[in-house]
């Protein structure tokens, strides 16, 4: 049915495939970091400080003589972890709220929607920063903060989908057949909105990467010695002219991962909804 044609369209979209490829490469490099990284990312003096890229240091070394390639690879893990964990957190909280809100309507819906409106009024970066200010820095707090600011996106999307699906005949039929609300939600509604949620997931994960690296760039996200693309960029700032590779390597990584996740998300969306495919 829809899905099959969708996969075909997805596979035929060059951009989506490019995005998928980027993601796969970054995930593979990150997961296999202990093998793909030639040096310990925290090892001081793995080479001379601030050496340009060479055969022994693919992306050069930083101001403490650490191998930039190894750090970039280990930082990929962190970026992936934070983005997946925070998006998952947002999905786990947001989807049930959206389901309940859209299905039962009434006052539950009103309350959830007003809360969501208020939530969404805060610019993402500002709210995430406010949360980390209160929670303190660190990997887990950053994940929590990013997850928190992503929740309303899932609520709103899920609710919208449920609202439009609820009018469909097969749902009416299930209701008429006396099936319980829980079964209708779990068996009929949820499976039908999963594809849309996957799209949302991949886009939200991309945005989570941007927020995490931004927080780490500001020094309130992932803290040293855990390498993060954001904090690498931040320390590269002082050496822009002397050692531009220190900034270009992690910056390009952020760009590529976010691009990849967005391309995959866009590709999936087009694949699922032929009308928007262009």
């Amino acid at each position, binding site marked *: 049915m829809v899905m099959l044609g969708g996969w075909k369209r997805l596979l035929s979209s060059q951009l989506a495939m490019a995005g998928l490829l980027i993601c796969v490469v970054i995930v593979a490099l990150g997961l296999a970091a202990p093998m793909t990284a030639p040096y310990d990312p925290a090892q*001081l003096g793995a080479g001379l400080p601030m050496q340009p890229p060479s055969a022994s240091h693919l992306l050069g070394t930083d101001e403490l003589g650490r191998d930039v390639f190894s750090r970039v690879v280990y930082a990929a893990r962190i970026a992936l972890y934070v983005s997946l964990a925070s998006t998952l957190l947002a999905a786990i909280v947001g989807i049930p709220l959206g389901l309940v809100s859209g299905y039962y309507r009434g006052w539950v819906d009103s309350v959830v929607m007003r809360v969501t409106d208020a939530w969404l009024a805060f610019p993402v970066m500002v709210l995430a920063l406010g949360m980390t200010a209160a929670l303190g*820095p660190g990997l887990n707090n950053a994940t929590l903060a990013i997850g928190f600011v992503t929740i309303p996106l899932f609520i709103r999307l899920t609710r919208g989908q449920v609202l439009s699906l609820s009018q469909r005949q097969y749902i009416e039929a299930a209701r008429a057949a006396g099936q319980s609300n829980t079964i209708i939600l779990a068996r009929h509604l949820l499976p039908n909105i999963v594809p849309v949620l996957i799209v949302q997931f991949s886009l939200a994960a991309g945005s989570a990467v941007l927020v995490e690296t931004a927080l780490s760039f500001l020094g309130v996200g992932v*803290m*040293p*010695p855990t390498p993060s693309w954001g904090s690498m960029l*931040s*320390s590269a700032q002082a050496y*822009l002219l002397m050692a531009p590779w220190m900034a270009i390597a992690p910056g390009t990584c952020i760009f590529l991962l976010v691009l990849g996740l967005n391309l995959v998300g866009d590709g999936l969306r087009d694949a699922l909804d032929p009308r928007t495919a262009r």
Partner: protein
Amino acid sequence: MIENGDTNPRQSGGREPRIARRRFLGALAFGAGSLGLSGKVPALVGSDAQAAAPEQGSRPLRLSLAPPRQGTPTPGGSLTVGLGEQPSTHNPYGGMSNRTTISQFLESLVGLDITTLEPIPLLATAWDVPDEKTYVFTLRKGVLFHDGTPFNADAVKAAFDYMLDPEVASPRASDFDRVDSVEVNDEHTVTFHLKEPFGVFLSTLARQGYFVSPTALKTWSAADLETKPPGTGPFKVADWIKDDKIVLERFEDYWDSERPYLDSITYRILPDGNVKTIAFKAGELDFVDNLPATEVAAIQANPTYTFASAPSTGYRSIYLNTTAPPFDNADARQALAHLVDRAQLIALGTLGFGTPAQGPLAPPQWAFDPDFSPYSPSLENAKAALAAAGTPDGFTFTLKVSNSPEEVRMMEIIQAQLAPSGITMSLETGEYNAIRSTVIDGDYQAFFAGWLGGPDPDRNMFDSFHSEGWFNWVRYKNDEVDALLSQARAIRDTEERTKLYRQAQERVAADAPMVFLRFPYWAVDGQAYTGRVRGYIPDPMQDMLFKDVWVEPQ
């Protein structure tokens, strides 16, 4: 960040009753140390970069105070200075945190000679000390405050009455609470009566005894006094846009009709060290202070810049809270001291700038012991200490550090050095003052900071390691050390004192309430300015005085 010890940290918060005690910060003893520094760190002050060719071989570091590339001063022009820390207030009777701007527009009765740090005439042209408790000052004539009020004996009395008024509750009051009364003899003569002999009275006057127009003190709003108090200095405050810039302009009626040469000074407030350095290199600033060592090489290599620095009397160290786990255990503290590789820290973190520190006594001080080296990097010793502490596999702790990129970088090095022992150091960063206040409250495990020190070893020992010291943030208490330090400040014989301080240093290092890391250079770690800046003489007190400075016409 660096503590200069100018203000009791408690009292600047206005929380506790004040105790009278202020010693003169004193001079940085130039060239006194026998630092075997390699030629890669020329560290000349006030010389041009071209002249600062690397000196080969090992020789004592000498500070040249010869005036830089002189010439005929050209009046006019303006100077743009990058300021890392915004002053908390301009009101000299408030809790001033940053003197850099204040010293351009406020003056005291006496100044300090830049080489000897002896008192020299400023607003007073002469003084007489008939007895230990009486100081008679002859005031300079024809001096006006920025608001047109004449500076005279009444103004002096008004300022001190204001400062000592319990209603005003000035944090400065304790600096002068040995002043019994100020007596106006005539228009230009004033007598200070002290309650008891106070050997450092003149120096305290120079550092803390600023004058603000009595008219302004009476009629101005607190907000205006905070931003633009009218003093007698060569410049006056034109504008202060918070977090952006402070603009000073020439005071036309300054008593020295030739000075200042500059029309204006703009301080750009750039707390982000990276931004400040980039702006300097991009030519947007004429002058930067607190230049990190990592930038020094690049700055020195560029002939258009002049670099100024000198060995400091202070040290950089990790403060360990000796009253909270895990560092309430001396073995745990010693483990850290055994693990830190100071040479690597200096080689990587500050590119060779500075010397390894093993104790609080600094190279330029007479009590300094060049052979004192209780700790050398040893994983074995650290493991033994960890086992003795009951944590053979290491432990985790959090270190607080300001979010300055240089300091975070230093701590990244330490993290890597501790890791092999199983000790994990997490970082908590933030604006220095916010972190510092939690440290003062004892709400911390470890903390990285600097201490500016002073010429007298007492400055480096008593405040931080005596159980009654103001800056004893490590909450260290050792009766033996207390006794040694109290004894040492009570006597005058240098040799005897040297012995006592070295003894105390040994105890302190063994107990390791701090992990001493590095004797830095002046400020963090120096200042730099562009070729158009002329006539600048670095002030050992790091006030960055611009009274004699002019700029080369472009």
